[in-house]
């Protein structure tokens, strides 16, 4: 009981520190007036919304996930560039050679965060949009058949599994 209470306070404190460092980075004014406004605002917001930032997982696993996630970003940017060039070719071709389709894609990802990452990554890479997620089936709209084939090879999903596995 005692331990959960101290964890609860730590949660508010970490949220407050994160928000305050963000405030200091963005404001650029380091005098008493602006910093005290920042401290007031951050205290209020962390009181109200610390539960949103830390709902279930413990700090240690978060740490690992963030590290792996940063490694995932360069690959995602590379995919975005490749796929963007493909969409540009489609848009600028004189005859619109598009062949849109909606297909379903089963995923083995379990947590909400992992599914959100997967859905947003699909939407970010041009040519595919996640329309809906029901349990573990994704409804994806693809601009042409080859975009759908790229997704169904499952490479993106494998990479996301390696991020979020414990």
């Amino acid at each position, binding site marked *: 009981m005692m331990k959960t209470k101290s964890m609860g306070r730590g949660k508010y404190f970490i949220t407050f520190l994160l928000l305050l460092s963000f405030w200091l980075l*963005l404001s650029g004014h380091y005098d008493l007036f602006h910093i005290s406004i920042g401290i007031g605002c951050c205290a209020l917001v962390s009181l109200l919304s610390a539960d949103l930032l830390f709902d279930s997982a413990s700090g240690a696993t978060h740490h690992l996930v963030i590290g792996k996630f940063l490694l995932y970003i360069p690959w995602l940017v590379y995919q975005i560039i490749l796929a*963007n060039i493909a969409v*540009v070719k489609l*848009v600028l071709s004189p005859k619109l050679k*598009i062949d*849109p389709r909606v297909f379903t894609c089963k995923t083995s990802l379990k947590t909400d965060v992992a599914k959100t990452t997967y*859905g947003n990554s699909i939407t970010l890479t041009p040519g595919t*949009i996640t329309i809906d997620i029901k349990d573990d089936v994704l*409804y994806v709209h693809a601009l042409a058949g080859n975009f759908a084939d790229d997704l169904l090879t499952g490479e993106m999903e494998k990479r996301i599994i390696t991020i979020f596995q414990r």
Partner: protein
Amino acid sequence: MVIRDIIAMILILIGCFFFLTSAIGLLRFPDMFTRMHATGKCDTLAVLLVMTGLIVHHGINLDSFKLLLIVVFIYIANPTATHVLSRAAYRLGMQPWTKDKK
């Protein structure tokens, strides 16, 4: 200094090209879903290129950090908005355009 300006200019010009493409795609594509592809997507790379160009131009300081934050938040918000819009259209019963229906 001059080389830095040239790199920034090239990056911003390529970014503008992608913005232009997304605008052309918005006008040319037949239905809502395909238009979401053009606007929601080319914008992501275009924003990345334009902001990188501005960061190169500015050098590393507080302003360029803020520019980087803009990119990060657009990369979170843009796909979410695209997804929500297309899901709303799908649930309202809008049928996706297909090649043979025309």
